[in-house]
């Protein structure tokens, strides 16, 4: 290939892949839903990610329960250990949506057919669903193993849901960032932890409050609002940054 000046352009410098800004004319929600359903179908077809994350979380719960449960730990420790298990569950498996695309070579096709906003929405929805499904199994098992009896069950459920939402959002954007890096596994947790830390503080504190009978509802409500707002902040940051991460 030569240009008019007679220099030949190497193939690698030929037209870089630009993200599709119009998304084949389909509205955002349609594209996002299509991507979400594609990921769900692909996951259900070959449940590797779901199985491995589930197994990892259950193993972590058992380890934690074995190490700490027999001794009889305080409620604050139980709250903290629950979020340790959830953090490692999220930051071991939620990058799968992006890494899988890189490994199967379908990233370029996705870049061409969907707008970045739709890709982020679809992947975020998938990660929310995945973490939700895992929490539905892991949290009751944890409660059984560690003998957790929340004084405010609705508050406990709200805290886990709100914290899980923020956790999945952060895991999604960090997963998008590391999908192109080498050494993905270890890097994922290392990158994610500092971003997640304020969330972990709040989640542990709020969960502890729900476990103790002495907390007032206003304090609980404040904690859960804090968790939801952190999640919203992270989603907002993701929406701003994802197009840059996604483009080639």
């Amino acid at each position, binding site marked *: 290939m030569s240009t008019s000046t007679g220099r030949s352009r190497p193939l690698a410098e030929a037209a870089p892949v630009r993200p599709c800004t119009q998304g084949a004319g389909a509205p955002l929600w349609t594209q996002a839903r299509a991507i979400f359903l594609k990921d769900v179908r692909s996951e259900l077809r070959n449940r590797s990610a779901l199985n491995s994350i589930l197994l990892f979380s259950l193993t972590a719960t058992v380890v934690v329960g074995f190490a700490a449960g027999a001794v009889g730990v305080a409620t604050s420790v139980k709250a903290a250990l629950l979020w340790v298990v959830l953090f490692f569950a999220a930051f071991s498996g939620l990058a799968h949506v992006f890494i899988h695309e890189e490994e199967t070579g379908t990233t370029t096709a996705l870049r061409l057919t969907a707008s970045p906003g739709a890709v982020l929405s679809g992947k975020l929805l998938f990660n929310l669903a995945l973490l939700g499904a895992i929490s539905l199994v892991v949290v009751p098992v944890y409660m059984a193993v560690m003998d957790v009896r929340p004084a405010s069950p609705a508050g406990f459920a709200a805290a886990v849901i709100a914290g899980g939402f923020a956790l999945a959002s952060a895991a999604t*954007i960090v997963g998008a*960032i*590391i999908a*192109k*890096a*080498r*050494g993905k596994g270890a*890097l994922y947790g*290392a*990158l994610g*932890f*500092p*971003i*997640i*830390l*304020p*969330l972990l*503080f709040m989640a542990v504190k709020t969960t502890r409050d729900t476990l103790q009978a002495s907390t007032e509802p206003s304090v609980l409500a404040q904690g859960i609002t804090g968790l939801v707002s952190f999640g919203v*902040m*992270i989603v907002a*940051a*993701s929406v701003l*940054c994802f197009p*840059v*991460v996604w*483009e080639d």
Partner: protein
Amino acid sequence: MNGIAQTEAASLAEGRVRGLWWKGLCGIWMAALILAVFGWLGPAVNAEGQPMFTAGGHGAKAIFFHVPCAWLTFIAFLVGAFDAARHLLRGARPHAGLDDLKCATAMELGLLFAVLATVTGSLFSRNEWGAFWSWDPRQTSILVVLLILAAYGVLRGSVTDPSTRARLSSVYAVVALVPAFFLIWVLPRVMATLHEGPNQTIVGGMIGGNYRAVLYGLALPAFLSLFVWLFQIRIRLLQLEERAAHGS
């Protein structure tokens, strides 16, 4: 970039080093600071003349080195996040400007000063309160900022392609600013901390004997000029490396 490169080449060829005049100032500030702290300043005494902190009041002098290191960490992080945002806003082209190099330099220096701040802080804490580490909120937040900066460095190291590396690390710097901001400004004020006492005494001017004057008048300019000097040297080094790598 070309204009800067030419100036750089010219000044290096002539043997002139840019910015010489304020390097001398840095040396003067630092020398003045050391002399003032160890030679001129008396022990830390409160309003009644009783010595505060250990070693008959002399233990408080660690603040003249610990606090500026903490300040510099946060300043470096802000400079890095600002340059990362600029890099992204300018279209994320790595050779369009120095923004990505500046971000990398600022984060590196921030890591250095974060390590220094953490170490000096824990030495002071050992002297003062008997333990190296007590999960005090401000201590924890400097540690997490350290982790964020280290994770930034690891991310940079793990991506080989320069434009992808610049893009991903800029996004991470901007995204990590949100929790860093929360950790630095919100968390220590919301939670009770060991730092509260010393904070009030110094900032509130409750230590007699010119402590506040020396801190703001000598330590702050000394460390700021040190930071700017290190920043300039490192930027120049990175520029030369880039030029050598691209053979221009």
